[in-house]
C-alpha cells in the first residue's frame, strides 16, 4: 500500500471512529421500563432514537405495574447476579435497598447531574456514589372534573373536608340526574406501596408527620394522624367505591377517565391520558395540589419518581451508562414532558415555554413538585419495606372498616417498634 493511500485510509478510519465511537462494536443491551399508561411506548421511542444515533441494539423489557411487584422482580434478578438486564428503572425509594447492585454513574455523567434537582441527586447518592440518574419526578396531585364543579357551582376544594363535602354533593346530584355509576373520589387503596403514598399525603396534610421522622423515631401515632385516617375511612362506601380497596394507579384512572368519578388522586402521567383523543373526559379535567388537612393544614403530595441505574453485572456498563445519560438528558426529558406529561427532573425545563404550553400545571405546581414529602426510606434503609407494609396494612384496615384509626395507629406503633428493635 502506498503511503498516501494508507494515510487516507487511516484518516477515514479515525474520522469514522470519532464520529461514532461506540458503534465500533455494536452491543446488545436490555432496559427494564415501566408499563403504566403510555410509559412503555415512550420508553421505546427514546431507546430507538438512541439506537439510531449509536448503532447499538436495545431490548425493552416491560415490568409489572405495581411498584411492590416490580421491586420483588428486581430483587430476584439482582440477588442472582443476572446479566439479563443492563439498565433498571428504579423507584425513588430504592437506591438504599438496591444500591449495592448498581455502578457509580458519576464517572460517566460528565457533570450532567448538576442540572437536576439536588434533592433527588442526594437521594440517589449512596455512600458518595451516584447510583442512579433521575428520569422523572412525581408528586401526588388532585384531578377534578372542571365541568361538573362548574355545573354544580362548587369551587376547587382547599381542604380534605371541602373535598369530602363537594364530592358528596356533586355525586348525589349527578346520581339523582340519572348517572348511577358516578362516584365522588377515587385513589390508590390496594394494600401496596401506592397506598403508603396516598395515606402519607393525608397524614402530612394534617401535619401528622411522616410515619418515622428524620431521626428514626416513630411518630405515626398522633392525634392529627388519627384525624386524617378517620376522615379517609369515612369515604369508602360514601364517596368512594368499596372497590378502591383493590385499586392501584391504573384502576383508579380507569374509573376517572370513563367519567365515573368527580375527583381522583394520581400522579401527573394521568394528565395527558385523560386529555388524549379517545378520552371521554378530554378537556374537562383540572389539576391542583392535594388539599390541606383542615384550615391549619398544609398542601401536600408524596414524592415519587423513577431513576435509571446500571447493573453491576452488566457486560457493557459504559455503553449502558451512555444510554442512561441519553434518556435522562434535557432533550429527552423535554420530549417526555410534552408528549406524556412526565415531570422533568431538570429545573430549567419548568421554565421552558413549549413544556408549559403542553402541561400548564407544571408551572403552577412547581412548589408541590420541589417540596413533595418524602417517604421515610432513607432513615429506615433496608427496613423501609417492612415499615411501609405495616403502614399500608394499618391504612387498609381503616379504609375497609375493620379497625378505627385510633386503634390501627396504636397497633402500628407497636409493630414498628418491633421492627425498629431489629435496627434501621
Amino acid at each position: 500500500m502506498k503511503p498516501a493511500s494508507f494515510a487516507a485510509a487511516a484518516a477515514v478510519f479515525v474520522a469514522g471512529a470519532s464520529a461514532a465511537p461506540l458503534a465500533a462494536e455494536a452491543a446488545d443491551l436490555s432496559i427494564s421500563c415501566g408499563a403504566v399508561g403510555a410509559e412503555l411506548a415512550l420508553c421505546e421511542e427514546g431507546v430507538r432514537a438512541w439506537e439510531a444515533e449509536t448503532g447499538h441494539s436495545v431490548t425493552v423489557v416491560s415490568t409489572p405495574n405495581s411498584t411492590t411487584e416490580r421491586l420483588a422482580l428486581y430483587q430476584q434478578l439482582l440477588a442472582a447476579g443476572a446479566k439479563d438486564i443492563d439498565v433498571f428503572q428504579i423507584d425513588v425509594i430504592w437506591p438504599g435497598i438496591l444500591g449495592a447492585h448498581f455502578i457509580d454513574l458519576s464517572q460517566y455523567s460528565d457533570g450532567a447531574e448538576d442540572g437536576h434537582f439536588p434533592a433527588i441527586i442526594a437521594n440517589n447518592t449512596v455512600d458518595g456514589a451516584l447510583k442512579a440518574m433521575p428520569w422523572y419526578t412525581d408528586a401526588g396531585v388532585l384531578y377534578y372534573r372542571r365541568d361538573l364543579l362548574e355545573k354544580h357551582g362548587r369551587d376547587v376544594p382547599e381542604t380534605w373536608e371541602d373535598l369530602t363535602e363537594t364530592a358528596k354533593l356533586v355525586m348525589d346530584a349527578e346520581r339523582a340526574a340519572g348517572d348511577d355509576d358516578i362516584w365522588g373520589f377515587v385513589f390508590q387503596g390496594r394494600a401496596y406501596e401506592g397506598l403508603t403514598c396516598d395515606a402519607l399525603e393525608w397524614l402530612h396534610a394534617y401535619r401528622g408527620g411522616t410515619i418515622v421522622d428524620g431521626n428514626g423515631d416513630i411518630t405515626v401515632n398522633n392525634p392529627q394522624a388519627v384525624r386524617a385516617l378517620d376522615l379517609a375511612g369515612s369515604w369508602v362506601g360514601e364517596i368512594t367505591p368499596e372497590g378502591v380497596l383493590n385499586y392501584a394507579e391504573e384502576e383508579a384512572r380507569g374509573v376517572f377517565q370513563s367519567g365515573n368519578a368527580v375527583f381522583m388522586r394520581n400522579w401527573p402521567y394521568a394528565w395527558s391520558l385523560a386529555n388524549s383523543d379517545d378520552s371521554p373526559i378530554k378537556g374537562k379535567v383540572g389539576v391542583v395540589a392535594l388539599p390541606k388537612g383542615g384550615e391549619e393544614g398544609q398542601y401536600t403530595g408524596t414524592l415519587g419518581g423513577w431513576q435509571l441505574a446500571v447493573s453491576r453485572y452488566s457486560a457493557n456498563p459504559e455503553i449502558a451508562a451512555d444510554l442512561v445519560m441519553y434518556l435522562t438528558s434535557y432533550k429527552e426529558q423535554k420530549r417526555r414532558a410534552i408528549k406524556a406529561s412526565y415531570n422533568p427532573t431538570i429545573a430549567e425545563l419548568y421554565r421552558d415555554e413549549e413544556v408549559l404550553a403542553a402541561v400548564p400545571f407544571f408551572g403552577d405546581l412547581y412548589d408541590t413538585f420541589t417540596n413533595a414529602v418524602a417517604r421515610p426510606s432513607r432513615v429506615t434503609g433496608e427496613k423501609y419495606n417492612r415499615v411501609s407494609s405495616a403502614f399500608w396494612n394499618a391504612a387498609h384496615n381503616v379504609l375497609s372498616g375493620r379497625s378505627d384509626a385510633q386503634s390501627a395507629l396504636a397497633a402500628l406503633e407497636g409493630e414498628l417498634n418491633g421492627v425498629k428493635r431489629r435496627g434501621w
Partner: protein
Amino acid sequence: MAEAANLHAAAPERARTGGEGSELSRAKVRSALLFLAPMVVVLFLVAGWPLIRTIWFSFTDASLSDIGNYGFVGVDNFYNSEWGGLLSDANWWTAVWNTLYFTFVSVSLETVLGMIVALALNVKFPGRGWVRAAILIPWAIPTIVSAKMWGWMLHDQFGMLNDLGMTLGLLAEPVAWTASPDTAMLAVIIVDVWKTTPFMALLILAGLQMLPSDCYEAARVDGVHPVRVFFKVTLPLVYPAVMVAVIFRALDSLRIFDLIYVLTSNSQDTMTMSVYARQQLVDFQDVGYGSAASTMLFLIIAALTLATITIGKVKLGGDPR
C-alpha cells in the same frame, strides 16, 4: 360404611418374593439399588437439598441483598424475647388461619362437587367423551391466566359478575368482590373451586370406573334404592380413591400462592402461609425469617398430612381396592 373401609384398609399385604440370604436374592437387591440410585440422587438434588438449605437458612440472619454473608442466630427467627420472632407474630397466625380455613372450605366443596360431576360422567350417555374433555378446561388453563380472567370478571366497576347480578336483580349494588374484607376470601374460594373441581372429579371418576359391577347387579336384583346403593356400596368402595384425591388437593391448597396473590396481592384478608413467606423472603429481603416461615409451612403441612392419613386410615400406595 366403616366396616367396608376397614376391610379395604386391611387388604392382605403381598407376599414377599425371594428367600433370605441366597446369592440370587442379594444380586437382585444390588441391582434394584443400582436402578433406584439415579432417582434417589435426583430427588435429593431437586427436593432434599433446597429443603435442607431452607431449614438451615431459618437459623441465620441471611438477607437477599447479600446472600453469601450471614451469621448463625439460633432459634431467634422462630422465637426470641427481644423482637418476638415468627411464633409471636400476629400476622403469621392470621396467615395460618387463612390457609387452614381456605383449605378446609375449598377442598370440602371440591370433594362434594367433584363427586357429583364424577357420578354424572360415570353414566353412559351419548357424547360422554366430549363432556369429559370439556369439563377439564378450567383445570387446563394456567392458574395465572384464569386468576387474571376472574380478576376482571370480579371487578367492582367493569366486572361481568356484578353486571349479571344487577341485571338479574340478585345484587342491589355492585360488590367489590376481591376488595371487601367480607367477600375477598369467598371470591378466592369460588375461583379455586371452579378451577380444581375437574381435577377432583377426574380422580374420583378413575376410582368409580374400577368398581366391580357384581355388587351393583346384586343390589339391582334385591331392588335396593339408588340413594342407598350410593351410600352403602359406591361410597365405601370408592372411599380410598376419594381420600387420595382429598390429600392431593389439601396438600396443594395448603401451599396456595398464585391464585391468591394475583387476585388480592398481599392483602391480609386472604394472606396464606406461602404469601406471607414470599413477602418476608422477597419484599422484605429477610431470607432468614422468610425461611423460618417456609420451614414452619413445611412442618404444618407434614403434620396435617400425617394426621389425615392416620385418621382417615388411608393406605397410600396400597391396593386401591
